């Protein structure tokens, strides 16, 4: 009886996490892969992996970072498994125009496309910092990098965005 209640509680907790964090995971996966179908696949596979190892999550306040790490590993895995070729960015922009669209705010649309065109090395830490709210130290932990390297990538990401948007160029660090 108790075991059954425990399992029910475990499922309920996992279900709550799925529901509350899925939108962010999908956004993150989409910004990683720039492809809606791929994002959906990656998040679904990630959820399955997360469910299997749910017991390893001892602190549920860290669930988001835990799931984001699973998503980025799953993305790398699927990239390797499917031997995905580096896509043509213009073709991706056209294919993902529905997500990129920002009706009523041209500046957001321009910025969204500029971020979309950034190399993954710059795009990923920017998403983790600005959208997900992680510190550079936390991002370094998630990406398995030195904090200094993350800072450099974030600096360059913003410099490239300024360049893509036609703003005044910034001196390289």
């Amino acid at each position, binding site marked *: 009886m108790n075991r059954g209640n425990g399992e029910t509680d475990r*499922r*309920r907790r*996992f*279900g*709550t*996490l*799925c*529901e*509350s*964090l899925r*939108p962010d995971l*999908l*956004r993150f996966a*989409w*910004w990683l892969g720039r492809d*809606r*179908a791929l*994002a*959906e*696949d990656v998040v*679904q596979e990630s*959820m*399955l992996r997360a*469910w299997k190892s749910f017991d390893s999550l001892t*602190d*549920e*306040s860290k*669930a*988001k970072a835990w799931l984001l790490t699973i998503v980025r590993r799953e993305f790398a895995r699927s990239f390797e498994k499917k031997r995905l070729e580096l896509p043509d960015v213009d073709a991706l922009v056209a294919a993902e125009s529905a*997500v*990129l669209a*920002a009706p009523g*705010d041209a*500046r*957001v*649309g321009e*910025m*969204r496309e*500029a*971020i979309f065109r950034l190399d993954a090395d710059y795009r990923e830490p920017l*998403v983790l*910092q*600005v*959208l997900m*709210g992680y*510190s*550079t130290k936390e991002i370094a932990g998630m990406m398995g990098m030195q904090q200094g390297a*993350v*800072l*450099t990538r*974030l*600096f360059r990401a*913003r*410099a490239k*965005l*300024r360049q893509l948007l036609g*703003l005044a160029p*910034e*001196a390289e*660090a």
Partner: protein
Amino acid sequence: MITCLEFRRRVGAEPFTDDAEVAEHRQGCPVCARYQDELRAMDSLIQRALAVDPPAKAERVNAKGASRRRFFAIAASLVAGVAVGSILLVTAPRASVAREVMGHVTREAVESMARTAPLAPDAVAQVLGPDGMRLKPSAGIVTFAARCLFDGRVVPHLVVRTPEGPVTVLVLRHRSIGEPMHLDEQGYTGVVMPAPRGAIAVVGHDVADLDGVAKKVFDAVEFGG
């Protein structure tokens, strides 16, 4: 004092950094200060640009479809309890802003309320900064701060621990209301108050004197231009 180049390197990576050397340089160099302001404004735009609607499920049928549908069936059963609660909330006859506030607070409760460690001031500033706002320490101890998608916009979401209990604070600069709106449902009480720009919602669960707590939090918010 750090050089202009070093200042720009640091704020280029972290526009909202609270680095003391950056702050000192900023005081004495108006050109760099303007540059940082420009970067902060750009980050606000980046934030809005990144907050895409969650990509819709692809309408595809393929060999892997069955396993995915199976996953959705599992996930659906897992979230059923939560979904029922959400539906009950959504169908209640209430003003939409109140409904959305309650829905967001209950959905995020697991993650946001689980955190009890005080956040560093820079973590809070990073969340409020893009909206040009600050929170004075008199509000209470902030244990959760994130920028959340709410009503299609990215809004600051805080959990503030007060002597009367923890409350969730949502800053809704895009929603204007004429007068305070009270919420009371399933143990949650709250109030959505008109603010100089938009509205601020304060919601608690079994919090004594919610109105008093809400006023204290509201008074601790500094609204920028």
